[in-house]
Each structure stands twice: as C-alpha cells, then as structure tokens.
C-alpha cells in the first residue's frame, strides 16, 4: 500500500462526480425544447393546430351554413380552377366550389373537419383508455391476464356492423334525448369505434407491462411501500407512454377512416351532417369531373393523419427523458 505523498486538489476533482452543468429547468420547458428540435413534429404540430383552429373558429368567420342548399349555384368549381380553365364555373362566394346540391364546399370542409376531428380524437382517446386499462390490468395482475386476453379475442371477432346496428336500436332513443340527434349519433359512433379498436393497444401495453414488471425499479417501488395503484400510475404508465403514443397516432387515423367507411356503408351520421369521410365517399362517383371534391377531404384526412403521426414521433422522443438532451 502506497500512501500518496501529496494531496493534490486536482485529485479530489478527479474523484468528484461530474454532474450535468446546465441549470435545472422545468420539465415542460425541456419537453418543448426537445420538441422544437424535431422538425417533423413542429410541422405536424403547427398543421394540427392550424386545422383545429380552422375547424373550430372557421365556421365563425366563414359563416355560410354548410347544409344550406343553393341549387342555382350547384357544381361550382373552386376558384383556382379558373387559372387553367377559364370556362370553369367559379364564384368568389364559394372559393372551394359547391357540390351537386349547391352546398358550399368550404363550409362543408370546416364543418366536416369538426366532426371528423371530434370523432377521431374522441374514439382514439376512448380506445386508448380501454386498451391501456385492459393491457395494464392484464399485465399487472396475473390472475386477470387469462380472462382479459380471452375478452380481447372476443372483441377482435366482433363484427362492427351488427354491433353498430344493435347499439343504434338499443341506445339511439335515450342518447337522442340527452345529446340531440347528431350528438347522440356522435356518442354512438365514437363508442362503437372505440370499443372495437382498443385490442391492439391492450396487447402491446400488456406485453410492455410484463417486461417492465420484471425491472428492478418496480421491485424498489414495492419495497418502499408503494401501493399497486400508485405503482401503476407512477411507475408503469409513464414508461409505456411510447407504445401508447404509437397506438394513439395510428388510432386517430383508424378512427377517422372507420368513420368514413361507416358513412360509405351508409350507417353513420345523419345524411346532412358532413364529415370528411362522408364528403370523400359522396364525391367518389364524380371524381373525374370534380376531382377537387375528393382531393379536398382526402388531403385533409391524409395531412391530419400525417401530422398526428409526426407529432407523435416527436412527442415520444420528447417525453422520454432519456432521449431528451441527447
């Protein structure tokens, strides 16, 4: 054993831990900083905000009633068609043109967006909620695992159409009484889409919970007397956020598309209640003569889905403290 002769201050420094030097900052600021660096997420986010604002505020600015028929001005083309086709029927009063009954397309886009976004978000949130709850319960409580997974199989095999018809018969009247005709249908559709699309989320979450449960910090949590409920909310859920985010981004897209498929099959919202999916479905037979009628709602759906996807990517990175600051 050799005792060092001198006590050099540098030696102490050498043994001192080098901690991060940056001053601490609030969590949300951190997340925001990280998010700012993700270009896709920023573009996606801004687009999402834009479209949300547009559908929320737009109808107050563009006050034309989307359901108002103006049969004399039917089949107007969007004004931009005038650029290459001077003979096209256009009107400044209807910048996006009108449909075959003379409904203003811009107003329809705005109103339709409202419905589509609302259905998308609500159904996605509902399915996330169910999926996460089932997944966590199945993964965390061993005894519930078998029954819950069989339940998942059951829901996977449930056909959505009869389910919708059953729900319509059983619940339309009370829902209509409580939420009005459109609101009632909204609740119904959201519920049906929600309860028929939570299964993949549940599966993924369950798998992740099963592996997380083996991690030492869960054991540590138990040793410091954390209750099961707290363990789930504090330790497990934040750590399965990233697969939940992926499910969420896909879920929003699926919900919007499922709603449009329901409209296409003729079981959905009242016919005069526009949604992007319905506009797209209605316009398909006329897509050669009036391509804008499919392009407008089609692009709106696609861009929203893309935006959510990119935003989800960015958020996933930003919410994970390990990725942050890298």
């Amino acid at each position, binding site marked *: 054993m050799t005792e060092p002769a001198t006590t050099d201050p540098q030696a102490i420094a050498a043994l001192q831990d080098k901690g991060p030097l940056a001053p601490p900052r609030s969590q949300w600021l951190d997340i925001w900083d990280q998010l700012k660096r993700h270009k896709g997420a920023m573009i996606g986010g801004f687009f999402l905000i834009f479209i949300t604002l547009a559908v929320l505020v737009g109808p107050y600015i563009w006050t034309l009633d989307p359901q108002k028929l103006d049969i004399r001005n039917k089949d107007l083309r969007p004004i931009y068609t005038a650029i290459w086709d001077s003979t096209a029927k256009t009107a400044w009063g209807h910048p996006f043109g009108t449909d075959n009954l003379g409904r203003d397309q811009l107003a329809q886009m705005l109103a339709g967006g409202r419905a589509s976004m609302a259905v998308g978000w609500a159904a996605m949130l509902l399915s996330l909620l169910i999926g996460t709850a089932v997944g966590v319960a199945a993964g965390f409580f061993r005894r519930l695992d078998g029954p819950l997974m069989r339940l998942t199989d*059951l829901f996977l095999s449930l056909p959505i159409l009869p389910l919708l*018809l059953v729900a319509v*018969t059983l619940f339309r009247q009370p829902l209509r009484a409580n939420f009005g005709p459109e609101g009632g249908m909204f609740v119904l559709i959201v519920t049906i889409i929600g309860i028929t699309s939570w299964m993949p989320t549940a599966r993924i979450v369950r798998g992740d919970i099963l592996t997380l449960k083996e991690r030492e910090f869960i054991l540590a949590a138990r040793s410091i007397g954390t209750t099961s409920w707290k363990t789930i909310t504090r330790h497990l859920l934040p750590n399965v956020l990233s697969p939940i985010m992926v499910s969420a981004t896909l879920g929003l897209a699926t919900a919007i598309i499922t709603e449009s*498929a329901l409209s296409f099959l003729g079981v959905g919202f009242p016919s005069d209640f526009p949604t992007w999916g319905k506009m797209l479905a209605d316009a398909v037979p006329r897509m050669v003569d009036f391509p804008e009628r499919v392009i407008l709602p089609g692009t709106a*759906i696609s861009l929203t889905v893309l935006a959510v*996807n990119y935003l989800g990517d960015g958020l996933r990175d930003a919410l994970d403290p390990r990725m942050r600051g890298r």
Partner: protein
Amino acid sequence: MLTFTIRRLVLAVPTLLFISFAIFMLLQLAPGDPMAQVPLTVPPEVKQQMREALGLGQPPLVQYWKWLVQVLWIEPKILIDWLTQDSWLLGWLPDTNLYQNELRVISWQTRSPVMDIVIQRIPQTLWVVALAYVVGVLIAIPIGVYSAYRQYSVFDQAGTFVTMIGFSIPPFFTGPLLIVIFSVQLGWLPSIYDTTHVVNDWASFKIQLQQMIMPVMVLALQTTAQISRYMRASMLDNLNMDYVRTARAKGMSEAVVVTVHVLRNSMIPVITVIALGVPSIFGGAIITENVFKVNGIGQLLITALFANDLPMVMTLTFIFAFLIVAFNLIADILYGVLDPRIRYD
C-alpha cells in the same frame, strides 16, 4: 412446447364457445330481418310464413344449440367423408359415411349449406386478399429494414411519408381512382374481377394477373404501411445491440450483419404481428372486395349482414373467431420457434 400447445388448444374450446355464444346473442339483439329484401308488395302474412319456414320462430337458445351441433358435429362429418372419398390426400383411406343427410347450416338467403359457399369463396379470397397480404409484407420488410438502417435518411423520410399516406387514404377512394385511371382512361386492366376465370396456361395466368393487380395493390398498401412501421421499429431496436458489434468485429460484411444477424432477430416480433394479421384477411377486405367485385369472404359477410342472413353471418364470424384464436396460438408458437430463448412448457 407440445404440452403448451395442447394446453392452449384445449383452453381454446371454451373460449370459442363463449365467443360464439356472445356473438350469437349480439346478432339476436341486432334489428333487421331476413325478409328485408322481399318487396313491399308481398303481404305481411306471407312474410311471416317465410320467416317461420326459416326456423325463426324458435327461441334463441334452441337456435343456438342447433347451430352449434351443425357446425361442430355435422359439418366435420361431411369434411371427413369428403376427405376419405374424394380428396387425393386421404382418398386411400376406407370411405366413411358419417353424414346421414342431417340438416346442415343453411343460409337463409340462398337456402344452401353455408359451408359450401364459404369453400366456393376461398379461391378468390386467397388469390386476391391473401396474396395482397403477402405482397404487402414482402414490400414492407425491405422498406422497414432499409429505413431503419438509414434512419432519418431521405429514403426513411419518404418511406414514412408514403406509407402514412397509404394508410390514411380509405380504399373506397383508392379503388375507384385506380379503376378510373387504369380501366377507364388507359383501358389496361379490367375493373371487374372474374371469379370464374380458370388459370390453366400462361395466357390465362396473365389475365388472372391483370385482374388481380389493382385489388391486390389497394389492399397491399394498407398492409405495407403497418408492417413496415413495425419492421422499422424492431430493426432500430436490434441495430444497437451488442451482438451486432460482435458480428462486425468478426469482420462480417454489412450485408451479412444486417440481413443475417439483425434481420432474424428483428423478425421475431414482426412475425407475430404478421401472424396476428392473417385472420383479418378473411374479414377485413370488405370494401375493396366490393369495389372490384372480387366477391370473397368479406363480400359474403357484408351481403349476409345486409340480408340479415343469420346462419351465414354467425358461421363466418365463428370462422373468423376461430382463426383469431388459432393465429394467436400460432403466433405464440412461432415466437417460441424463432426465438430459442423462449420455451413454453
């Protein structure tokens, strides 16, 4: 592994019974009536008679029991008879005559055994929907692999963009769009699928290809989008593993490192995703089948639904549930086979 498999198989029986019962009750609750297609000019008494002729008057539990016996007892007997009599596979076995003209599951719409129609639909479904799935997977895997290997490259970004667009555009739009372009404008491809077409030589195969290409592409677009996302994520996980470094340290070329070492590991979770997607082949292509008139199982289900053909809907949903349970099991077994670390017992 074997005990695991057998155990799961045995457990699957009550699961399936429960699922079938739940679906049956659901369909019972659903409104609608097989007489909806009958014109309004037919008086109600006649409709009532027709309903009774279909056995609709019986209490639901009796109907369920009858259906259960038919599906689980009578239909298998027919299958065994067919296997031992006509099939080339087991035709050498002594002929069995288990089926004694008991009542089979009869479709209300067509008054013919449901199973016969289902079997009739299988070729279309396999040609188009299953092939689309295969094509989708085959496209998705290289895309996923390459986008992960070159993460954040132009290819990766473009791949994400295109697959997400593909994912977000509903098939009831892409289908007619393709038809307008390729059938109407260009006239290259038929817009209506001919299910009676028989492939027996090169020329007929070409025709088959022509009529398949559009529905297959529309369907594959959806599959590709999802599978390639999974593939990419899984590849990314594995590319950072230590064993990849080991492989490189051994002097393996990049191609070997990626396609042998990483791919095999990344495929494990993706294979189960793929396996779990297979059941949807049989029910998930309703709109595309309708647009191109492929008339596979999906179309069968939707027409049966709209015609309130309960036995048909019930049987198809049951087959669907059966497939889901079966492929769940297959996915688990595949997992065990592909990943030597996992052994069920």
